[in-house]
C-alpha cells in the first residue's frame, strides 16, 4: 500500500508552496481583480514558466520535463491554495491535455513546446450560453477549415492565443484548434464573479481552424479532456479549501468574543471540524483521481467524477463558512475571504456544474456495474 505522493513529489510541493507564498496568494489575485493592465499576473506566469511547471506533464520530446500527472496534481493543489491569477488550468489541464490526448504528431510538435516554454496560453471553448451544454445544443460550425459561431463564456479567452473549440462538423461534433490572433476572431472581456481570472466572449467569423482528433469525435474527446481536467481542478479545490480552513482556524484562535477565542465556542469548533471532514473526503477522492489519471486507469471517468463532486462541495462549504467564521470582517473587501469564495464558484463551474458531475458519477457507476 503506497497511496501517497513520493518524497520527490512532496518536495516539489514544498518548493511550489514557498514560491507561491511569495509570488502569488490573495495579494496577487487582488492586483488582477482591481484591474491591472493584463487579465492575469504576467510576472507570476513568467516565474512559473521559468520553474518549468508549464512543462511538468509534457514529454521531454516536446520540450517538457516529462515528469507526469502526479507532479501536475501537486502543483494544482498549491496553485489552488494560492488562488493564483494565471491561465494555468486552461493551458495545461484543458488545452495541453487535449493536444496530448488527440493531437497529431505535427500538432503536438508545434504546440507543446510553446506551452512548456510559456509562449502559448491555451483555453477550451465549449459553452455557448446559459445551461449545461449538450451534443444537441452546440451551434458553432466548422467546415472546410473555417470556424463560425459564438462561445461564451471562455475562461482565459481574453488572454489565450490558442483555443480548442467544440463545433459542429457535418453530422457530428469535432474539437477544432484556433489561433485567436487572427482577423476572424473577436473577443469581448466579461465581468464575472471571479475577477481574478479572465473571461471572454469569443466570436468566430470565418476564422481559420484545424481539427484536433478525428471528425465527429469532438464530444467524446471533450468529455475525456474534462475528466482529466476534473482531477486537476479537484486538487485546486482541495488546496483552496485547505487555505480557507487554515485561515478560519487562525482567525478562530486569535479573535476574541465574550473574552474567549471564538475557536473555543463549539459552534465554531464544529464548523471547522466539518470543514476538516469535507476536505479529508475531497482530498482522498482527489488522490484516487490522481492515481487513475497518472496510470490512465479504466477507473478514471468514475474517479474523476467523484473527485470533482467532492472537491466542489468541499470548497463551496469551506469558503462560505470561512466568511461566517470571520463575522463582519469576513464580509469586507479588504479581508481575503471573498477571494476564495469567488474562486470556489469558478472552479465549481469551470468544467461543468456539480449536479452535472453527480449525474455523470452515477451513470459511470451504472456502467461500471454493468461491465
Amino acid at each position, binding site marked *: 500500500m503506497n497511496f501517497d505522493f513520493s518524497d520527490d513529489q512532496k518536495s516539489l510541493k514544498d518548493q511550489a508552496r514557498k514560491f507561491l507564498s511569495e509570488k502569488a496568494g490573495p495579494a496577487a489575485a487582488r492586483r488582477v481583480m482591481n484591474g491591472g493592465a493584463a487579465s492575469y499576473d504576467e510576472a507570476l506566469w513568467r516565474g512559473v514558466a521559468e520553474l518549468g511547471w508549464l512543462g511538468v506533464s509534457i514529454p521531454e520530446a516536446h520540450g517538457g520535463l516529462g515528469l507526469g500527472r502526479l507532479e501536475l496534481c501537486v502543483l494544482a493543489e498549491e496553485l489552488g491554495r494560492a488562488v493564483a491569477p494565471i491561465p494555468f488550468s486552461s493551458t495545461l489541464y484543458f488545452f495541453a491535455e487535449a493536444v496530448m490526448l488527440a493531437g497529431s504528431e505535427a500538432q503536438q510538435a508545434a504546440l507543446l513546446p510553446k506551452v512548456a516554454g510559456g509562449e502559448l496560453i491555451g483555453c477550451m471553448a465549449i459553452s455557448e450560453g*446559459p*445551461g*449545461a451544454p449538450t451534443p444537441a*445544443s452546440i451551434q458553432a460550425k466548422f467546415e472546410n477549415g473555417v470556424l463560425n459561431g459564438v462561445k461564451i463564456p471562455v475562461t482565459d479567452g481574453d488572454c489565450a492565443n490558442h483555443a480548442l473549440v467544440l463545433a459542429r462538423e457535418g453530422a457530428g461534433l469535432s474539437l477544432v484548434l484556433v489561433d485567436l490572433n487572427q482577423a476572424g476572431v473577436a473577443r469581448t472581456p466579461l465581468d464575472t464573479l471571479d475577477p481574478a481570472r479572465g473571461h471572454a466572449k469569443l466570436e468566430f467569423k470565418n476564422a481559420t481552424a484545424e481539427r484536433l482528433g478525428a471528425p465527429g469525435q469532438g464530444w467524446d474527446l471533450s468529455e475525456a479532456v474534462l475528466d482529466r481536467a476534473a482531477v486537476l481542478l479537484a486538487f485546486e479545490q482541495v488546496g483552496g479549501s485547505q487555505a480557507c480552513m487554515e485561515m478560519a482556524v487562525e482567525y478562530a484562535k486569535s479573535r476574541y468574543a465574550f*473574552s474567549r477565542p471564538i475557536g473555543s465556542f463549539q459552534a465554531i469548533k464544529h464548523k471547522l471540524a466539518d470543514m476538516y471532514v469535507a476536505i479529508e473526503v475531497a482530498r482522498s477522492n482527489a488522490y484516487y483521481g490522481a492515481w487513475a489519471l497518472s496510470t490512465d486507469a479504466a477507473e478514471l471517468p468514475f474517479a474523476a467524477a467523484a473527485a470533482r463532486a467532492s472537491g466542489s462541495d468541499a470548497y463551496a462549504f469551506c469558503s462560505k463558512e470561512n466568511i461566517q467564521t470571520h463575522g463582519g470582517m469576513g464580509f469586507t473587501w479588504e479581508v481575503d*475571504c471573498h477571494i476564495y469564495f469567488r474562486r470556489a*464558484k469558478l472552479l465549481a463551474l469551470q468544467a461543468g456544474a456539480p449536479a452535472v458531475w453527480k449525474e455523470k458519477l452515477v451513470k459511470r457507476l451504472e456502467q461500471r456495474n454493468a461491465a
Partner: protein
Amino acid sequence: MDFNDTPEEAKFRAEARAFLEATLQPKSSDSDRLIRKLTPKEYLKAAKEYQRKKAEAGFAGITWAKEQGGRGLPPIYSIIFSQEEGKFDAPAAPFAIGLGMCVPTVIAFADEPTKDRYVAKALRGEEIWCQLFSEPGAGSDVASSKTRAVKDGDDWIVNGQKVWTTGAHFCDFGILLVRTNPDVEKHKGLTMFIVDMKAPGVEVRQIHQANGGRDFNEVYFTDVRIPDKNRLGEPGQGWGVALVTLMNERLAVGGSYGPDYPEIMDFARTIGSPTGEGTLLQDKAFRQKLADWVVRAEGYKMARFRTMTALSKGQTPGPESSIGKVINANQMMDIGNSAIEALDLYGIINDGDLAPREGAFHQSYMFAPGLRIAGGTDEILKNIIAERVLGLPQDPRADKGIAFKDLPTGR
C-alpha cells in the same frame, strides 16, 4: 381562524391606502424605481418630503404616544401600513433605523427638553438618525465596545471607532454606545449618548464590502465633544439603554430578501436541466429542493401572520421572530447558488446588462454571506433562541466579575 382585518384595522388600512395612492406611484419595474432614477441627493430629498407628508397625514410614529406626535396605536397598525406601503415605490428606507430604533430610545430615556428638541423633527423627516453600536472588536459581543468617552467639565470627549453604520454619511444624529468606565464589568461601564454627526472630529468612511457594494460605513471619533445633556440614561447604564434599542430592532420583523422560490421557479422554466433532459423545473432533484424552499418560505410567511395575530391581540412578540433571518439568509444563498449552478459555466458571468435576469441571483448569492452575519450571526441568533425561548443555560462566562480593562482580548 381567518386572515381578515378587524373592522378598525380594515378602516385604517383603507385610510393608509388612500394616503399612499395620493402620495406615491405604485411599485414598478426595478429600473423605474426612485432609488434608481434619482441621484442619492435627490432620493434623500424625496425621502424627507415623503416622511413630512406621512407625519402630516398621521402615518408617522403610528405606535408612538400621542404626546410624541404619534398615533398611539398598537404595533399591528404599523405593520398594516408597511404592508400597504410595500405596494408602492416609497422612499422610506433612510428613516427605518432612526425612527424604528434610535428615536424610540431617545423617547424612552431623554428628558422633556431633549425630546422636544429631537423627536418632532425626526418624525417630520427633517433630521435623520443612525445607530452607532458595533465596533471592529465588538460585533457579536457588542457590550465589549471600547470607544471611550471621558468627562471634561459639562462635556464628554469621545475617541474611537464604530462600524457597519447604515446611512452614517447622510445622518444628522446618532445614538452612540461608549465606554465611560473601564474599571468595572463590561456591562456596567457603558453609557449612551446622542451624537451630532456633523460635529468636529466625526469622520465617516464607506466600507467596501466583499460583494463589491458600499452600503455601510465606518465612523471615526477623534476628540468629539458631546454635551452631558445629550446623555441617554445614567452613566454606566448604557447597556440597559442599548437593550431597549435592540428590542425595537426585533420588532422590525424582516421580510424576504431578493429572489425566492417564485423567482427561481420562473427561471427554472427557461433553463435546461443539469442532466440535459427537459427543463430545470422538470428535473426531479430540483423539484425536491424547490419543495423545501416553498415550505420554508410559506412557513415563514405564515409564522409572520401568527406574529401579526399576536400583535393584533395586543401581545408583543418575543425573540422567536429571530428565526426569520436564520431561514431567509441561508435560503437566499441556497437559491442564488442553485440558479448560478443551473447556468453551468455561464453562471460565472456577473454582468447585469448581459444577463439581467440572472443578475438578481448573483446579487443575492454574493450578499447572502453578509446577511448571515448582519444584525446577529446565525450562531448568535441560535443562542438567543436556545436561551431566551427554550430557557437553556447561558454559555459559561469568562468575564464574570472582571473589570473591562482586565478582560482577555487576545491582543
